[in-house]
């Protein structure tokens, strides 16, 4: 948009003169819509008015409820006209208005008439409209016609019915599932698109039936599939079948691989690509299997079509993460893509090269990238920075040139996210490559001399405070830090003061000089800065003689907060809302890290743990709700503080009459089982619901009381509780068998009233176990290495275990994590595919007070057998031993 502003305005005026919708106004168009009511319909004019209405809706105009109803009713009058063009617009309009249920009835008969019309176009469109606006009851009326339509000889009609079926399956699955014979028949259709739609619907109907899907794939991969779209779909289903069958047979040839490979020679590009992508995504793919897929993707790289180049380079980029060696052949094609017009392609090419490059090519690559960096957008630069970070971790010897590159781009212009990515990368390099520490810290120091982002400045200052004092010459950082006190805003000044204090605490020789600087801060204009300076001066003994800094002070300065910030925030809010005489007690804050919802994870795929040690933010969830629920029941108030609530454990199979799950609430001397019951039978009302628990396999537990549920109507969940006593502070384990006991009363579905007399009945539930992991509270630490070192080796217990043959390393890792019930740190729960060894870091709090850190080293030992080294650090010998007991008995 390089045109001068005035010129643009002229253009707009010119264009506006010709627009058929110039000066269009909702009120006027709604007036015009009265022509729909004329006894002598003018079809063309009506079409035009509908177009105008659709234009308004498309531009984001909204109709009020009355306006929409009025338009809808007058539009329905247009079914009188036999003009096809107008009828098409009427269909569109009805879909756009999405009428309410009572309005739908008005058009149903007209649409049903069209559904049985001789004109194919009417039939197809009427089906799509009717299915879009219909509800379950109406659907049963038209089901017969839809089944006919599916097998209609006209492909447009068949497709319309099939696609509508795909949508309806979401709302009325039980009806659509009855059509599977018709759909099955249509899968053999000669019309290409009909086959595609039938295949999609059939697969969705049978999705949960693994065997049926497998059969479908087997028969179709041998038969003829006409359209490329259907072929792509079949490839998808095939790889799904491969994924699932993999779990059963580990040895031998991969089933269906030949089919996928055959698709690489298909004539449609979309099929070739889909097959190539499917092959690269096979789990545990071998390089022999990969080669043909890589070859076709390499051909795409030099295609004249940007879409093909993009598709290929994106897929190869993913392959590079797991099999860098497999795609080195593509490097030459890839390098020519660095100058591709399309920046998305160029960025993907660069990052792929960074992943596959070897040590000797690093310098050459960096030169090429430097030219490239200046003319791409920030979001692409971030991708490149991430790739460079992983390259540096791969080739630590090359840190000098890579660190230089990072510091150069740090000096250039850029937005916050970009700068943050660079700073994070430098921080991670400093942490992981000891040689890079000093130069990296100096780069960061220079950066904060001229940094416009308060957040980054404070984060860097915090990091300097931890790492700086451990370097060979800590004094050289002081100047940069003190400059912040002179030059920056209050927030940065305050963190600079804290950083100075850390240097003072750690380096005795610097203490006198630090005191001088801190005393100057006592005259700062900002309260927080002055407060911090005063606090640190008195803690470090700066007001008098030079004393040895004791452990408590160091803990205060460097120790991490042992509760998640979110929990602290909620507790503080509650405290402020209900003022009391008591002081706020930090021990009352729950320590459990709340599980993050999946959505948040999906948003940041593959993101490394944040570089600057911020505790992972955890949204509040059900745990809070449990806490409220439990504390609201007076019987439980004497048990003390709730230390942990487990996730619900299902005690019934899905889709049984009564759905029950249990939540285990752990207190110091008690365990409360909360049974969440749901009655899924509309004709029944349950009363006096309780759970009879047999604890004969749980010797250390004895039942204290139970709290039955008075009534459990259909589909409104209720809870019943059973309380057990256990020895104080002992991680007692045991197995409990459960029986649901209740009084059933028949309910008349018409009136909803229950009969007077009920029958006693019982319902067997599955067993429930209390395991050691139930006493473990997940608590993440922001920097595992720091936490590990500060815990010290006094109570470290190390032992080795053979885990026997396992399906995969990842499976072994996750089962040990689940066994211990601890919080994985720094993303170490993820095992890269095909790796032969893995280290996993865990942290947690045992028996509500003892902090525990665990380092697990896994290795594959012989054929499929996994060996594990378990190192535990805690503040108490018996706790460390207890953790080992969990593993050896699990």
């Amino acid at each position, binding site marked *: 948009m390089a045109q001068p502003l005035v010129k643009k305005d002229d253009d707009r005026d010119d264009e506006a003169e010709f627009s058929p919708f110039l000066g269009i106004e909702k009120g006027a168009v709604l007036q015009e819509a009265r022509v729909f009511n004329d006894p002598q319909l003018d079809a063309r004019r009506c079409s035009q008015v509908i*177009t105008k209405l659709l234009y308004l809706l498309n531009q984001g105009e909204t109709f009020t409820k009355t306006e929409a109803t009025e338009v809808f009713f007058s539009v329905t009058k247009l079914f009188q006209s036999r003009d096809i063009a107008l009828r098409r617009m009427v*269909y569109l309009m009805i879909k756009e208005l999405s009428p309410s249920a009572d309005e739908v009835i008005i058009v149903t008969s007209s649409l049903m008439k069209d559904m049985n019309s001789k004109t194919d176009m009417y039939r197809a469109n009427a089906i*799509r409209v009717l299915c*879009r606006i219909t509800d379950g009851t109406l659907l049963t009326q038209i089901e017969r016609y839809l089944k006919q339509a599916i097998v209609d000889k006209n492909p447009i009609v068949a*497709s319309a019915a099939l696609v509508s079926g795909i949508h309806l399956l979401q709302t009325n699955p039980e009806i659509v599932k009855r059509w599977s014979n018709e759909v099955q028949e249509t899968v053999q259709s000669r019309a290409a698109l009909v086959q595609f739609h039938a295949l*999609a619907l059939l697969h969705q109907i049978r999705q949960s039936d693994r065997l049926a899907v497998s059969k479908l794939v087997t028969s179709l991969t041998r038969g003829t599939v006409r359209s490329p779209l259907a072929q792509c779909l079949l490839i998808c289903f095939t790889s799904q079948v491969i994924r699932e069958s993999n779990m059963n047979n580990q040895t031998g040839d991969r089933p269906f691989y030949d089919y996928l490979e055959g698709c690489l020679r298909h004539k449609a590009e979309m099929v070739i690509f889909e097959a190539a992508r499917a092959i690269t995504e096979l789990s545990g793919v071998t390089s022999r299997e990969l080669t043909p897929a890589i070859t076709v993707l390499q051909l795409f790289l030099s295609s004249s079509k940007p879409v*093909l180049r993009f598709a290929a380079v994106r897929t190869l980029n993913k392959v590079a993460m797991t099999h860098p060696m497999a795609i080195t052949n593509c490097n030459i094609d890839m390098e020519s893509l660095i100058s591709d017009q399309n920046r998305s392609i160029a960025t993907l090419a660069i990052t792929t090269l960074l992943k596959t490059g070897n040590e000797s090519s690093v310098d050459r690559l960096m030169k090429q990238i430097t030219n490239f960096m200046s003319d791409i957008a920030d979001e692409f630069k971030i991708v490149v920075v991430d790739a460079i970070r992983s390259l540096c971790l791969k080739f630590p010897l090359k840190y000098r040139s890579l660190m230089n590159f990072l510091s150069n781009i740090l000096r250039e212009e850029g937005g916050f996210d970009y700068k943050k990515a660079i700073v994070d990368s430098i921080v991670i390099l400093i942490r992981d490559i000891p040689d890079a520490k000093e130069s990296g810290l100096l780069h960061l120091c220079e950066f904060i001399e001229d940094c416009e982002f308060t957040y980054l400045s404070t984060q860097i200052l915090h990091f300097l405070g931890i790492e700086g004092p451990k370097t060979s010459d800590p004094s050289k950082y002081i100047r940069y830090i003190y400059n912040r006190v002179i030059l920056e805003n209050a927030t940065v000044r305050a963190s600079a003061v804290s950083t100075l204090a850390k240097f003072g605490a750690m380096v005795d020789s610097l203490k006198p000089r630090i005191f001088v600087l801190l005393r100057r801060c006592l005259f700062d204009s900002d309260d927080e800065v002055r407060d911090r300076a005063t606090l640190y001066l008195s803690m470090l003994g700066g007001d008098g003689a030079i004393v040895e800094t004791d452990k408590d002070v160091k803990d205060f300065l460097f120790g991490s907060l042992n509760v998640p910030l979110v929990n602290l925030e909620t507790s503080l809010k509650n405290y402020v809302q209900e003022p009391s005489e008591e002081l706020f007690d930090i021990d009352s804050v729950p320590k459990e890290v709340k599980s993050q919802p999946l959505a948040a994870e999906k948003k940041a795929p593959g993101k490394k743990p944040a570089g600057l040690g911020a505790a992972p933010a955890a949204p509040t969830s059900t745990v809070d709700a449990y806490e409220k629920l439990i504390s609201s029941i007076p019987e439980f108030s004497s048990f003390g503080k709730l230390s942990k609530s487990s996730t619900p454990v299902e005690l019934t199979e899905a889709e049984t009459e009564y759905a029950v799950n249990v939540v285990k609430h752990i207190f110091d001397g008690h365990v409360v089982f909360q049974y969440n019951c749901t009655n899924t039978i509309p004709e029944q009302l349950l009363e006096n619901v309780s759970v009879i628990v047999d604890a004969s396999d749980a010797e250390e537990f004895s039942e204290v009381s139970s709290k039955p549920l008075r009534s459990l109507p259909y589909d409104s969940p209720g809870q019943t509780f059973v309380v057990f006593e256990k020895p104080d502070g002992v991680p007692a384990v045991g197995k409990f068998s459960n029986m649901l006991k209740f009084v059933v009363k028949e309910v008349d579905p018409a009136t909803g009233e229950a009969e007077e007399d009920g029958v006693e009945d019982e319902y067997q539930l599955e067993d429930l176990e209390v395991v050691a992991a139930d006493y473990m509270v997940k608590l993440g630490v922001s920097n595992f290495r720091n936490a590990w070192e500060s815990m010290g080796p006094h109570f470290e217990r190390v032992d080795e275990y053979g885990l026997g043959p396992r399906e995969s390393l990842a499976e072994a890792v996750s089962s040990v994590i689940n066994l211990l019930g601890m919080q994985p740190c720094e993303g170490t729960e993820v095992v890269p595919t095909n790796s032969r060894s893995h280290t996993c870091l865990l942290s947690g709090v045992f028996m509500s007070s003892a902090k525990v850190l665990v380092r697990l080293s896994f290795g594959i030992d012989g054929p499929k057998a996994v060996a594990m080294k378990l190192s535990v650090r805690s503040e108490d010998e018996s706790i460390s031993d207890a953790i080992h007991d969990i593993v050896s008995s699990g």
Partner: protein
Amino acid sequence: MAWSFYWNNHDTCPTIKSILVLDSEGKRIAVKYYSDDWPTNSAKSAFEKSVFTKTQKTNARSEAEIAMFDNNIVVYKFIQDLHFFVTGGDDENEIIMATVLQGFVDAVSLLLRNNVDKMEALENLDLILLCLDEIVDGGMVLETDGSIIAGKVSSHSMDDASPLAEQTISQALATAREHLTRSLLR
């Protein structure tokens, strides 16, 4: 969009999230969203704006171009002062999306008799909207062949059931116009 909440189930089926036709300033000509990712008009406008600004400097005239941002894949093509976009999630098969775009552009060119520009598009907005309706239904690809789509949109022939005598003058005129259009299209 009463039923587009089923996105999560669609892990295997190729799914289109939106088709956009914007003018050379990024203003809406015709848009169709098949997904709930953009629930409000302002969310839609913001999405269109970012799609437009991120692609406007590229040359997508001879071949369809492609871009990826915020977990969306956007394939696009420019003709005269019109910008055509097809968007989908980031695990879609790009080539299928490009095929849909090509089908759409072909159908529009046929229907507008190769005069593909903003004026012509606005004057025949009904055809464009019908085209959008015939190419994708609730995210599912209905048809990808441009000439078939154009054929479906322009088949304005009279209902076979109604005898010619019952037609009004305007209906007869419309029929004549249709026959003309169709002969031009062939």
